[in-house]
């Protein structure tokens, strides 16, 4: 774009954007600040001293319910959902690159799963397991409920990725004698790797956060969000904020690690340089 003098409206919009950022981050910042409430402090401002007391409370089993069990279940479920989402979205994305019988119908089924109100999905899965007489559990019915949510998103992303994928790369690989599996392994996957990381990340997070779809389908043992929701109604101490701040930190670490990975891969690729036009 050519550099032009900024019109006055630019500054108005910049202020608006600044306010929007405050609106987005303000609540989470509040949580993190309140987590450092002093031992005598309450659930609201003002701060009554500054301490890490409530983080210590997190690790004392009597102060909060089965939060660590719920944490383990949520993490495990998130990991299973993540692997399944990446695998099936990638394969489905490959399939949707060519027209196959029933492609449109299948696509609309996927969209229907996405737009289905979450409470309906939850009720339906819960009722179905009930009717079939199968015990509901986080690794069976809740896993299904989560996949109704993450798979459509994963597929939409893969469709968007493959819509922008230049088939010339694959053609080049084939021309050089690569088999189908080699083309996938050495050409397609490396090119779309950052998107796959993205699908994995959000598959995990969508599952890790999910409440509505889980509520009727989880069975006897709660996942972390449900446990938190139950805590929230009778929480009297900032320990809930400490938990929030801690999970925020954990997620930041995971995302940071993924970003570093992506950057490292890019660096490595750049260090190889391009040999375009070097052929003899």
């Amino acid at each position, binding site marked *: 774009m050519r550099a032009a003098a900024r019109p006055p409206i630019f500054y108005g919009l910049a202020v608006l954007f600044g306010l929007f950022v405050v609106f987005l*981050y303000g609540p989470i910042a*509040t949580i993190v600040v309140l987590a450092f409430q002093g031992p005598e402090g309450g659930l609201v401002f003002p701060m009554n001293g500054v301490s890490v007391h409530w983080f210590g409370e997190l690790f004392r089993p009597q102060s909060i319910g089965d939060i660590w069990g719920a944490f383990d279940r949520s993490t495990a479920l998130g990991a299973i959902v993540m692997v399944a989402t990446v695998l099936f979205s990638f394969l489905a994305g490959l399939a949707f690159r060519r027209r196959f019988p029933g492609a449109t119908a299948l696509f609309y089924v996927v969209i229907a799963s996405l737009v289905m*109100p979450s409470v309906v999905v939850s*009720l339906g899965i819960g009722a179905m397991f009930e009717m079939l007489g199968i015990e509901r559990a986080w690794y069976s019915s809740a896993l299904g409920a989560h996949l109704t949510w993450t798979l459509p998103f994963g597929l939409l*992303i893969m469709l*968007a990725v493959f819509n922008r994928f230049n088939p010339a790369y694959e053609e080049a690989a084939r021309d050089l004698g690569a088999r189908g599996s080699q083309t996938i392994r050495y050409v397609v996957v490396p090119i779309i790797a*950052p998107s796959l990381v993205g699908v994995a990340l959000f598959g995990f997070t969508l599952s890790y*956060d999910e409440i509505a779809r889980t509520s009727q389908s989880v069975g006897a043992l709660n996942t972390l969000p449900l446990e938190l*929701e139950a805590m929230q109604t009778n929480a009297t101490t900032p320990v809930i904020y400490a938990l929030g701040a801690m999970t925020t930190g954990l997620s930041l670490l995971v*995302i940071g690690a993924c970003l570093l990975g992506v950057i490292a891969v890019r660096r490595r690729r750049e260090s190889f340089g391009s040999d375009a036009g070097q052929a003899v």
Partner: protein
Amino acid sequence: MGDYVCTRFLHRLFPCVPAAQPNLANSAPAPLLDTILDLDRNSHDPWIPLLGRNGLVNRSLLGIGVVEGPQEWLLYSEFAVILGYVHLYTLMMIVPIFNSMTRIDRSLIEAASDAGASTLQVLWTVILPLSKTGIAIGSIFVIAMVMGDFVTVDVLGGGQVASVGKQIATQLSYLQFPPAAANAMILLLAVIAMIALLVRVVDIRKEL
């Protein structure tokens, strides 16, 4: 609530990708994925220390003397529920629109301004029509999520605000399965009708 912050990070970082390697397939949709991470179900409770009777907003308002007493309508009200939804789902709308906008050919904008269009005219007659599909896709996401939700209503409405989802959840908690199922069917039909209207406007598959 963690992903919340992180998504923002991703959101800031990923848009630079297209500039760095425009030929790779990963570039354009990256923002789409990071924002989807954003649906944080536990992000409502931060509003309580902000909006409650003794919350930050009330204290500040009292401090600068704008109001006489604590404002009750800030929390456990329709206002709070709507604020919560806007906070949760704005990015679900921004990303599809962003996706549409990045695909607008810049020469169109240049042509419009060369032909004498003012900034506002460019916005209204060029950019807006070309972003319509993004707006439609964002609307589908937001409608689907708001219609099925009962958690936000529960936490921020504090029993003062009703929604279909909340009603179904309440009936379920009293094991009233038949009325809950009937309500769910009606909700489903309503959502399908809305989405069907939107899908008529935009071919989702083509626009991804």
